[in-house]
């Protein structure tokens, strides 16, 4: 009895801690979401949490000081004297706050606290991100023409074209490899496997320039095929290892009986292994998909940012403008680019936890 109670309490504790961590984790994202619907000037002026009802100072009346008030001397306001610094930061007296409205005109706001919230929202950020910006250009004959920049749709499809094959190809190859490493006996199996594990710790940055040289001589730069190959190669070690841990744990009897019945390795792989490792396949797909979808470096080097191949991450980086003047668009762009990974995650999430656990608990 006591034991069960204690367990319930500890469960409650764990849940609370998890809930708190979740909330802390989500708050920045929530802030980003709110900001993405606010006009740029508002984002600069007030924090996103001001959209929630809160108590804030509201001006009730304005005082006009004599125009010749010397700001570097103590300033007299309705009987009391304050320094300029106090009036700049706002000085509270009897529940009222005095703060400069305009120092030049020598006007002071008298403010009281009251409930308020900000309700200015706009979808302009999303419209610009999805539809493209407009630029006005003066032509040689003096007329002005408006040019519409490309929106995100082109780069969205480019990213799909990069990501889907760059997810499928390595998983396809790695599953074959993992089966061989787990269940086939061939010379050099252990050595090869250790080499692959060792490749896990090699940072991909060291390979950039050598591969780029090879790509240049092969003419693969800026092609989809080139980037599929690059992502495949960079992703293979982890995926092979992940699939190996999952496949090596399938019961041995299964294969033996299949062999007895005259199944070839290929039949075993396609009829037994693949269906049995769907959870592992799904979760590593999510990993690889997210990695390729969010990738900036590999596409920057091997694909470049020509409009016909430009991927989302690069498009978003360019959205802010040469001088970073359009930073407010990033909020909306982040949410647009998040849609696809979220969709993939929720579509495959029922396998996700099962797959993650695969390999962690032996038995």
């Amino acid at each position, binding site marked *: 009895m006591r034991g069960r109670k204690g367990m319930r309490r500890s469960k409650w504790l764990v849940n609370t801690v998890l809930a708190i961590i979740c909330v802390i984790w989500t708050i920045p994202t929530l802030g980003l979401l709110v900001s993405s619907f606010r006009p740029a000037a508002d984002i600069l002026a007030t924090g996103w949490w001001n959209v929630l009802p809160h108590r804030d100072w509201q001006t009730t009346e304005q005082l006009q000081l004599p125009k010749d008030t010397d700001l570097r001397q103590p300033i007299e306001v309705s009987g009391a004297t304050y320094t300029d610094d106090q009036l700049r930061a706002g000085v509270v007296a009897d529940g009222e706050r005095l703060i400069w409205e305009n120092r030049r005109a020598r006007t002071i706001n008298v403010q009281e606290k009251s409930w308020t919230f900000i309700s200015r929202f706009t979808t302009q950020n999303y419209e610009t991100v999805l539809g493209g910006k407009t630029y006005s250009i003066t032509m040689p004959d003096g007329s002005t023409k408006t040019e519409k920049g490309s929106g995100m749709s082109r780069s969205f499809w480019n990213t799909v074209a990069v990501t889907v094959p760059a997810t499928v190809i390595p998983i396809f190859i790695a599953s074959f490899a993992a089966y061989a490493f787990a269940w086939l006996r061939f010379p050099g199996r252990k050595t090869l496997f250790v080499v692959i594990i060792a490749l896990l710790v090699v940072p991909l940055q060291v390979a950039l320039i050598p591969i780029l040289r090879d790509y240049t001589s092969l003419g693969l730069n800026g092609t989809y095929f080139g980037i599929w190959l690059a992502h495949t190669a960079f992703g293979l070690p982890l995926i092979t290892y992940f699939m190996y841990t999952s496949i090596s744990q399938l019961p041995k009897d299964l294969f033996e009986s299949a062999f007895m019945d005259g199944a070839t390795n290929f039949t075993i792989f396609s009829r037994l292994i693949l269906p049995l490792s769907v959870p592992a396949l799904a979760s590593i797909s999510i990993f690889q998909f997210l990695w390729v979808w969010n990738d900036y470096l590999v596409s920057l080097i091997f694909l470049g940012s020509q409009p016909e191949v430009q991927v989302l991450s690069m498009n978003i980086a360019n959205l802010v403008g*040469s001088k970073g003047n359009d930073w407010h668009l990033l909020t909306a762009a982040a949410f647009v680019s998040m849609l696809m990974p979220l969709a993939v995650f929720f579509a495959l999430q029922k396998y996700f936890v099962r797959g993650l656990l695969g390999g962690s608990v032996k038995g």
Partner: protein
Amino acid sequence: MRTKRGKQVWTAFILLLTFIMLLTACGGGAGNTTTNEPSPTAAEGEEGEGGAAEGDTALAKAMNGEYKGKKVTMFGPFTDADEVKFNESIKAFEEQTGIDISYEGSKEFEATISVRVNGGNAPDIADFPQPGLLKGFVKDGKVVDVKTFLSDEYLKKQYNQSWLDMGTMAGPSGDVMAGVWARSSVKSLVWYNKKAFEEAGYTVPATWDELMALTEQIAKDGDPAWSIGIESGTATGWPATDWMEDIMLRTTSPENYDKWVAGELPFTDPIVKNAAQKMSDIWFNEDYVYGGRKSIATTSFGDAVKPLFDNPPKAWLHRQAGFITTFFPEGLTADDYDWFPLPPIDEQYGQPALISGDIYSMFNDRPEVRAVMEFFTTGESLKTWIQSGGVTAPMNDADPSWYANDQERRMAEFIQQADAIRFDGSDLMPGAVGAGTFWKGMTDYVSGTVDLDTALEEIQAGWK
């Protein structure tokens, strides 16, 4: 049932994959054919202008349509509005010559160009906003000397000598002309809200003393005069280096400035320290700066200009290069703002101008690339960009009447009349200093974490 459904999913998936592969394969093919197809407009251009272009330079040949269908790749940092304006400014040339200039803009240009060049995938032409970065490539002999196909007389006709000097860099076997200057920007500008400025009865200061008097006057009237922000992400601190360079030019000789930029005059020298103190007179006076000293390092350089155009203005003066007009609040017209040059400090050094610019360098030597490079030495290559605003032409043959407004026209005049023109020093210094310790040291000094001497030593340490 389940397996059947699974099969369907698999089939659908494989179909999708094949579809994507087909799509991308076709896309590539289509792209190739269009670039090789001579466009009808190019043919028209040839007939119409054929007689006009004479001589045997690459540009003249291109104008006659000799390189029709050729492709020239360009790589540079223009993105967004700049990219659109650039593409617009080369459109007429592309139509007339049939050369396809394929421009690729990247926010990560500085990082990527080294990888590209070392990986053997250099673009035909690269656009360097920081000549310091280009110097390394010139030293390794990766860059084609412009003088191999453009004569000295021609270059002298197109550019002022100081531009040519700045473009001359040390190659593996002697000095080479590392590229052509294609657009410039003036940095020594102090922006103000024209209407409010006139209403308040202030006058544009002609000397440093007058500037300080105006600053004091504005403070007395109740506002901080200056709005300053140096926050810029990983590049935080660069606006402070611009201030330093501007003041250096006004407190010491151009020769000393050159030495300083080359690393021969250390940051710890009293000359440099003096310049930093002149700057501190304004920056660290709580009455002179909007938000006070503590807000300088945390205010974004682009947002710093906005208080000038509040109603009523919260600040009155802002020192920044010509590009800052892109950060002005929307709806502002040329009647609302104006600029004056940062006034001279020491009479004997006159009115110098701090500038920056983009140098186009050539990595692959082909006739059509030569033609495009030659095209970029003409003012014509910038015409629509100048008319759209936001750029000053370094070439002599750009017509002042092209500028969209008086403010920009005066910038071009200002460069021509300046007593000394010097390039942004931090862009010329090696990256470790110019884009490293200089930014960081100034930021530390401004935010008050170190004193001036320590900050200057910190910056100097980058030279080692």
